[in-house]
């Protein structure tokens, strides 16, 4: 790490600059044409910025205003905006291109005017930022900004600067969770250009590191459920439509920068497939060893097939990226809402137990009842999503300028401008639901060691006075031990879920629902209010994160876990949601630890897993950090699809993370 990077990083880590931001009582301006609202807000905010630069800051566009004017209803997120558009034209060029498109589509003038006004505000902000930089003697930044105002970016620095400015704009107009997509693909030509013009790789690593620090400066004021949940994730590697592996020198530099900086952003996803060499996994495992909770892996063999099965064109599917957490999305052209609703599996099984178990003569009958509860929940989700769609009346042409077909046709996403408008349904608590079903199958129907009435009474009493019955449930077969009973139930439950959800029209033209295996903050929130379940879980206790063994389950081990969790047909659940496993940090200190963890990941992919997220974690450290937060200002943990600072999390999330490490190896 160079001195420049060290200085900038130390400055960021102190976080003092965050205290000097202003809060502004913005004047409430409500343009008659809703299309003008986002641009108006951009204008208000950008004009209020003091254009501060920090020591060693070569990217600027920092937020000096802590709050934003109200734009309720206009927000959108979890999409990968059209970076190639910005990189092709530059800041001034984008505005001109929008003007040209307006002249071609005069009937869409309202859309284009709304977009152009936002881009003009960005140009003004950029010009002021250049002047301020010059005044402070930062000629590099001043020259860079002026260059991209007048022409397209031509090298790596200018390309990063363009993305920086664009991200500023998008966050202000409420594209929350701005994901960064295939960074090593769209940035690579610019990276090569810089090399060609004499830059060394070390210099470009330094530049990348300074850029990544810039990305972290304002994450405390980005929108999210918890701090860190801001969607700045990027994707490395993966195939092209010609089936070439794009992992390149820039991918390596990104990994290296992330490893040296140990910051929460950008979160890194790596696309792999069954032919990815072990050395790649080893390289990535060295980053995992840092304890940041990334990279997260996704399997091209499964995801691309899954997306084309859902109806995405191959050329789009092959470019897939990750939304803020894990949802597989198609960049640039789609406006999918990937997290619109969440299936609560344990709740479905509990409801079936209470309502129907008494009348079921065998497990098959009961299983059918549980599936009916899944169907009933889905029917509710469909209705609620319709209400959501009815509320989508606020156009956001500035943000939609970064959805290619919206921009080209002048049609906002709310009017169907995007190519894909699908809905994603998370699948929360699959493992505890499978465990509950397996317990009922073995204890109630096969062994008859628990009667139906006792089980129902015990669940309704939240196991008060039913300690031994609960122990029997806790010692029943658990998903993750690679046993036939749980494997079969998991396969059938998920097949049913996928068959009901995938392809169901969502009410938008040509658009559908897609099933997934994720579960975000809901592993805490949606578990609250769900009574005791037949896996032995007590009322309100949290579910595991995404697609993982139940909390407190001591599985046979990681080989059984990856074998079990790759049995279901994951090609049908490409709304995404990773198997999440915790490995004690000491494993990574062992010389054999890195290659062996790499082998484990490679095997997960080979067995047909869709997504994997690994954490190097030390339970003792987390407990100590709860007791003495002052000693751990920079302790980073994976929360759900993102990483954040442990100290900045609510207690319920801290506790969920600690409890899932109880049996980490």
């Amino acid at each position, binding site marked *: 790490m160079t001195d420049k990077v060290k200085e900038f990083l130390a400055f960021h880590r102190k976080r003092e600059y965050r205290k000097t931001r202003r809060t502004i009582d913005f004047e409430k301006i409500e343009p008659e044409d809703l299309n003008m609202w986002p641009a108006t807000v951009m204008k208000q905010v950008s004009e209020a910025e003091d254009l501060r630069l920090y020591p060693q800051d070569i990217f600027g566009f920092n937020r000096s205003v802590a709050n934003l004017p109200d734009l309720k209803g206009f927000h959108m997120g979890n999409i990968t905006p059209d970076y190639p558009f910005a990189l092709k034209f530059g800041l001034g060029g984008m505005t001109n291109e929008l003007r040209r498109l307006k002249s071609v589509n005069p009937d869409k003038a309202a859309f284009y005017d709304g977009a152009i006004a936002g881009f003009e505000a960005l140009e003004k902000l950029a010009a002021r930022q250049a002047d301020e930089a010059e005044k402070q003697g930062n000629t590099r930044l001043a020259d860079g900004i002026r260059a991209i105002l007048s022409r397209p970016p031509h090298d790596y620095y200018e390309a990063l600067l363009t993305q920086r400015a664009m991200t500023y704009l998008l966050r202000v107009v409420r594209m929350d969770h701005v994901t960064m997509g295939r960074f090593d693909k769209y940035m690579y030509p610019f990276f090569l250009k810089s090399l060609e013009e004499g830059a060394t790789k070390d210099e470009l690593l330094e530049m990348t590191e300074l850029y990544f620090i810039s990305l972290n400066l304002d994450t405390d004021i980005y929108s999210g459920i918890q701090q860190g949940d801001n969607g700045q994730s990027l994707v490395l590697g993966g195939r092209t439509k010609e089936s070439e592996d794009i992992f390149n020198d820039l991918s390596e530099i990104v990994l290296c920068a992330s490893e040296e900086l140990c910051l929460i952003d950008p979160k890194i996803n790596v696309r792999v497939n069954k032919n990815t060499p072990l050395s790649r996994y080893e390289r990535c495992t060295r980053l995992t060893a840092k304890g940041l909770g990334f990279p997260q892996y996704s399997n091209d063999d499964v995801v691309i097939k899954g997306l084309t099965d859902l109806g995405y064109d191959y050329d789009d599917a092959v470019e897939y990226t990750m939304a803020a957490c894990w949802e597989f999305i198609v960049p640039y052209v789609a406006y999918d809402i990937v997290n619109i609703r969440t299936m609560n599996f344990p709740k479905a099984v509990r409801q079936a137990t209470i309502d129907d178990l008494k009348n079921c003569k065998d497990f098959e009958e009961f299983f059918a009842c549980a599936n009916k509860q899944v169907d009933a929940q889905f029917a509710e989700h469909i209705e609620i999503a319709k209400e959501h769609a009815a509320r989508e009346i606020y156009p956001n042409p500035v943000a939609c300028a970064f959805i290619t077909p919206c921009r080209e046709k002048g049609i906002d996403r709310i009017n169907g401008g995007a190519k894909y408008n699908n809905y994603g349904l998370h699948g929360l608590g699959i493992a505890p639901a499978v465990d509950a079903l397996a317990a009922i199958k073995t204890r109630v129907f096969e062994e008859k060691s628990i009667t139906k009435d006792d089980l129902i009474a015990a669940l309704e009493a939240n196991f008060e006075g039913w*300690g*031994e019955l*609960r*122990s*029997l449930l*806790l*010692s029943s077969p658990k998903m993750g031990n*690679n046993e036939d009973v749980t494997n079969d139930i998991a396969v059938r439950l998920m097949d049913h879920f996928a068959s009901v959800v995938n392809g169901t029209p969502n009410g938008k033209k040509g658009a559908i629902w897609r099933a997934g295996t994720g579960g975000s903050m809901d592993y805490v929130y949606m578990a609250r209010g769900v009574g005791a379940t037949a896996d*032995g879980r007590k009322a309100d206790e949290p579910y595991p994160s995404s697609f993982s063994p139940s909390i*407190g389950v*001591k599985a*046979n*081990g*990681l*080989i*059984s876990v*990856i*074998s079990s969790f790759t049995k279901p047909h994951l090609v049908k659940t490409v709304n995404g949601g990773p198997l999440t496993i915790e490995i004690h940090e000491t*494993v990574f200190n*062992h*010389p*054999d*630890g890195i290659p*062996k963890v790499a*082998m*484990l990941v*490679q*095997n997960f992919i*080979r*067995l047909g897993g869709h997504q994997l997220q690994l954490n190097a974690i030390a*339970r003792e450290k987390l407990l100590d950090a709860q007791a003495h937060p002052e000693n751990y200002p920079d302790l980073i943990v994976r929360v759900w699809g993102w990483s954040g600072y442990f100290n900045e999390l609510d207690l319920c999330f801290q506790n969920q993370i600690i*409890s899932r490490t*109880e*049996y980490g*190896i």
Partner: protein
Amino acid sequence: MKQGKVFSIEEFSVFDGDGIRTTVFLKGCPMRCVWCHSPESQTYESEYLRSPNGCLHCDRCLDAGEKETGKRVLSRASVAACPRNLVRLCGETFDAETLCERLLREKDVLDASGGGVTFSGGEPTMQAEFLLECLRLLKGKLNRGLQTCGKCPPAVFEKIAEECDLILFDLKIFDKAAHLKYVGADNEDILINFDIALRSGAKVVPRMPLIPTLTDTESNVNDWCEWLNERGVKYVELLKYNKMAGSKYKLAGRVWNPPFDESIDCVVRKEIYEKHGIEYKIV
């Protein structure tokens, strides 16, 4: 069908040989190393253990044990009594076929990574008949590893070694008197068995635990290096002393009182290995 007593099956054991491995820990050991970090492995008899992680200290396990046995100890009833499922029986009886079936379930992953299964302990050769049957059942199906202290009648060891693909062989204390004192057994068989292992055709990896002031001394390391050199063995793995060694004693209801100073870091005598041209790796 031979039965054996297993106290743990650990998947993805990173430290017990090549590739991804599952290690089967067999209960019972003929030695009593003063630095032993798994006291629950020493006796052949099963015992109940309570994991401290997540324990509520509600003592319902002991209440149930008392009710069942009349003594305030963990018992069969304690397992069901624990509200967090933390009490377990250490020492489960398996028949060889069932155990091998279970191991073969993960054959795909074990094979694909160049790994396999490792029998460890305790001292696995203590359950020689059971071990032999398992090794024979797995022949040609999984890479079969053995982690041994080498303390076993040579005639028995020879049969076992012939059934192994990989032998991780512990070399502790060379000096006979010191060995007897700190390990609780003589080392004569161990030296003989190492030569048997070398002749068996299995891949042999000598491993030296580095216990501060006991095994990491200049003379001990030098003795072993000379001895390895005479046999043309040019490689050794070093296992650094685990400072958490005492933690399981409480779990097993015993007292940890090591006759050496735990606070001293063990020494890696680089110069001695280099002098003998022996490559070493710290694992």
